[in-house]
């Protein structure tokens, strides 16, 4: 379903798991860059974050070929998912439920 998923906890930057390995580097760059938006969104939410159990950050970073979605748990573990843009049919709620399944 997704091309790349990266789980980022403060202490343990997990190795991203991605499906097509030849693009791994690209995904790394993409996920890394998307963290800008994650940080922005988290800081924009500010204190509201504390009250919520979990946080779907939505689309972080659309590119021509991929869409990057973010999710943050209340323990500040960040999930970043890269999805092929051609999956136009993927709606936000589907992404959300994918994150929740994780």
């Amino acid at each position, binding site marked *: 379903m997704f091309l790349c998923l990266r789980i980022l906890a*403060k*202490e343990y*930057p997990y*190795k991203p798991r991605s499906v097509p390995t030849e693009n*791994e*580097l690209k995904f*790394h*760059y993409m996920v*890394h*860059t998307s*963290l*800008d*938006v994650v*940080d*922005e969104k988290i800081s924009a939410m500010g204190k509201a974050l504390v009250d919520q159990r979990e946080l779907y950050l939505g689309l972080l970073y*659309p*590119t*021509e*070929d991929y869409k990057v979605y973010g999710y943050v748990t209340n323990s500040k573990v960040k999930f970043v998912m890269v999805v092929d*843009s*051609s999956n*136009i*049919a993927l709606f936000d709620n589907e992404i959300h439920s994918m994150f929740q399944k994780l």
Partner: protein
Amino acid sequence: TPLTPPLPSVERAPVVGAGDQNLFTSIYPTLSQQLPREPMEWRRSYGRAPKMIHLESNFVQFKEELLPKEGNKALLTFPFLHIYWTECCDTEVYKATVKDDLTKWQNVLKAHSSVDWLIVVVENDAKKKNKTNILPRTSIVDKIRNDFCNKQSDRCVVLNDPLKDSSRTQESWNAFLTKLRTLLLMSFTKNLGKFEDDMRTLREKRTEPGWSFCEYFMVQEELAFVFEMLQQFEDALVQYDELDALFSQYVVNFGAGDGANWLTFFCQPVKSWNGLTLRKPIDMEKRELIQRQEATLLDLRSYLFARQCTLLLFLQRPWEVAQRALELLHSCVQELKLLEVSVPPGALDCWVFLSCLEVLQRIEGCCDRAQIDSNIAHTVGLWSYATEKLKSLGYLCGLVSEKGPNSEDLNRTVDLLAGLGAERPETANTAQSPYKKLKEALSSVEAFEKHYLDLSHATIEMYTSIGRIRSAKFVGKDLAEFYMKKKSPQKAETYLQGALKNYLAEGWALPITHTRKQLAECQKHLGQIENYLQTSSLLASDHHLTEEERKYFCQEILNFASEQTDSPGHKVVLPMHSFAHLRDLRFTPSNAVVHVGGVLSVEITVCSQMPVPVHMDQIAISVHFSIEKNSYRKTAEWLTKHKTSNGIINFPMETSPFPASQNSLPALELYEMFERSPSDNSLNTTGIICKNVHMLLRRQESSTALDTPSGVALDDGAPVLKCCGVTLEPGANTITFRTQAKEPGTYTLRQLCASAGPVCFVLPHLYPLAQYDVYSQEPQLHVEPLADSLLAGIPQKVKFTVTTGHYTVKNGDSLQLSNVEAMLILCHAENKAVIYSNTREKASDASLRVQSSDKVTSISLPAAPAYHMIEFELEVLSLPSAPAAGGEGESTMLGMTEAQRKPKDTQKADHCMATTDHKVSIECPWSIYSTVIALTFSVPFRTTHAVLSAGTRKYIQVCVQNLSELDFRLSDSDLVDTGDSTDLQLLPLNTKSQQHICSRQSVFFVWELTWTREPPPSLRGRFSMEFRPASEERLSISLKPYTYEFQVENFFTLYTVKAEILPPAGTELCRTGSLCALEVSITRLSDLLEVDRDEALTESDEYFSTKLMYEVVDNSSNWAVCGKSSGVISMPVVAQATHRVHMEVMPLFAGYLPLPDVRLFKYLPHHSAHSSQLDADSWIENDSLSVDKHVDDQLDSSSIKSRGSVHSAASSEHKGLPMPRLQALPPGQVFNSSTGMQILVIPSKDDHVLEVSVT
């Protein structure tokens, strides 16, 4: 600032006027002005929320052609309301013309089933006045209503004097306008509802063949236009969004194989890519293409977005435009891919680039600078996208390559420019139009560079300003790539370093590797040899690279190392961590302590991270030497005691490749520190040491500056441990360094440096600290007892330890002990010595020869090398010297209890053994000075003696207490009189056999003392006994007996005192509370003796008498003495002279009560002053206050008062005055025969009236 007011992009809804055209013309200005002034509530179908809207209309003249024909879908031109205007007030005129006209109008309307109409009758007072045949005003209106509005009388309204400025006019206008608005709205609602229904029906048919999206598009857009006309931009936008979604869905379905045939039309090859046009409200050109069903996908998308953009700008949502634009551009690219539309290379890049700039310029056009600056987050994506696209165009058209575009590139450029077409007229005059920019950028290498750099810098700046550092770095990396292509590595380096720093800080392995690779290339071009080699070493150890790549970078280093050998002196210093990892370090000996001249080896394990074996010229550890100030700390003793490590130091894996985050500083490593004094082991210093201060307190920046080799300082000139010609295999390698210790001190291993040619890999600090100590030690002799303490009198073992230190003990070296009289060194036939090495390992056994002469005992030492220890034991015997004889030995009357002794003395001596010190002076071969050793021996026994009496018979008791931990066997106890009194005899009452005395126990010995003539005044006794430790059956030598000397005096009994208590007359037993008689009889046992000759003795007629004072004391308060309790008696000094005293006592308690004490004193007359033997202490102790009182009673008051003042120190005036004194009789001279007697007292019958009177 508000957006520019909505431009009337759409014509207003038409209201068609008929009738008197001139009249309408005169009214129109007011009408068109007044109509939109008041809002109307618009209630809508399908549960949509009602809205307040302002109605505006376009008034047009009635023509029959205007009326919509059946099936007409146009809504925009739909005549929503027909108004017939008339000013007619003349019935005749009405009948003649107006009525016909109205009828004709009505018929036409009916024919087109148009039901929204209104007849307005304008009344004009001025006009009326001119007419003579005036009918009442209402009649015309009534007629019209009658004729035309058969049930809808409200379809005809009157407007009074519309051009006048009167309240009536105003009222009339208001009523008219309200009506007009209501009707207009009704018509809107009705017609819109119908239109929407039709539209939905049409949409439902979309699955039918022949359905055309473009047709439907036009219909729904009509609705959007109407909403826009009504200024319901939100609703208008919804229409476009629905169209957008519908189209997107079709594309997705097409991708899924469910194609609609109309869609194939959109799949025609892209021939034009001139970008979005957002400057016109409606791009009629494109609209017509859609209408004609000739639009391409990009045309449709462009038109749709342009409309959405217009509406969003009306809604003052420019940032949504930016966001939607980005989505649109992305999805267009995707859709073209999905539909497999053929697109010339670069065409889309052009389209996207132009579109991005167009959107940005459009937004900039309607916002001020401050707004734009505060919304960079929304627009920066477009900037970045445009930059990206320009970059790829540059690469595509050969504008980035070093040589410039080739012909193929140029052809491509021409094709691309052709697809742009001519510039649109609306931007033709704009200098910075996207079109012009693109055209210019593609025109030459220089122009491209300028535009690309401008865009990149702008984007980076924007990202940086909103804190999206990562994104900025990413764009920077693209820029670096560009610079690399342009052969300007120095410009590229900054960006690469910046990005790398960011990735390093956050620990992104793959980007780090990739960026490093780029950086390596850059540094190579720049000729930054050290940096390049360092990056190469990092890359060579990077597991994210392929084996080949790693080998390549490793080879780069090796090549450099081998090439540069001809230029000595210059060194390239690189940090070690990327090259190899120092895993552990092992000292041999394991405590890392070695004496001067000893050999120390250091074994290190280095894990090479290189992919191939690397030959190193030399591996060296530089050593820092320091002389310990505290010389004690350098002794073998201290070092062996305190350095308990196993000699292995493990080095933690350096976190160099991923310093996970700045704030993950190492934890504090705190250790307790105690420093003790060498002499008595007392605590000198204590504290806490933080062992990793250098890790914690270093500056933040320096920890991240991992890639700057300048941070590594080489320890030049420091002593080093070396190992030459080592080949480091990939993985763990073991390298051993050996060194011979020279100067004493502490050696700290500082740096590890592996060098190959001019390349040095340096580990600047070894942490945890690795140290070894070299010491030099003076030879020493220690003598200490084997047991806790030495006991006198029995052989004891003493351990001699010779620490040779730097001295080598040769054959013939000996220790010369000067003999001490009272201490013997017991020589055995065989003495063994053990030689230990420095690490307490047994080296060898050796025999020891001990020779004693009169003065000196000589111990010949076995030969032993330096830094060894010789240990042996010798037996010594301290002769038991007789302790000072107890002249003050206590004589105790038989039966006297222990508690009555002075408690202080007994306690004091209870636990401590008496000690004797012997100092032995020893001459050692290594020193001209002799060593003096003090040995302390404890006497295991404590002895006391006592005189016991039974009437006149006397006994001597000797108590021997064993204070030591050992058990002893005692034998041959003996007591002899050392005085000259020959007639004294001591009869032992003891067993002859051996006696066992356990630790902490006592043995008593008793002798009866007999004499034949007059007993002597004193006895000097010497007690002696043999003893030996119970554990040893046989001793090689005979031990000296233990002796104890003492003296007793005045032990002969002169008086016996007998007390008796008799129950009251007539009763058998004493009762509490009733008076009893106390009979005391004092009997003299001997005639005049030498001891009686003192001041108390009076002589008259050969008759001697002495004065005694008696005293009855009951310390236990069992008895109340009634009447006098003491008195002075004159005692004849004749044997069997008896004095009886009668007293009354009252028992206070029931039970067996001991009798009260009767004490006897010598009463010395007052003339014999100043020679008192009665010291104040004993006086106070013996005398109680109650005695004082009784004495007072009996004696003459003045004398007793003055006596009392002696101890009370009340006044000094009595001093020197004659006064009687009391002197205690020595305990041996008085025998109290009633001591220990008890008498039964029974309780009184009526206790409750017990009355005690004490006088």
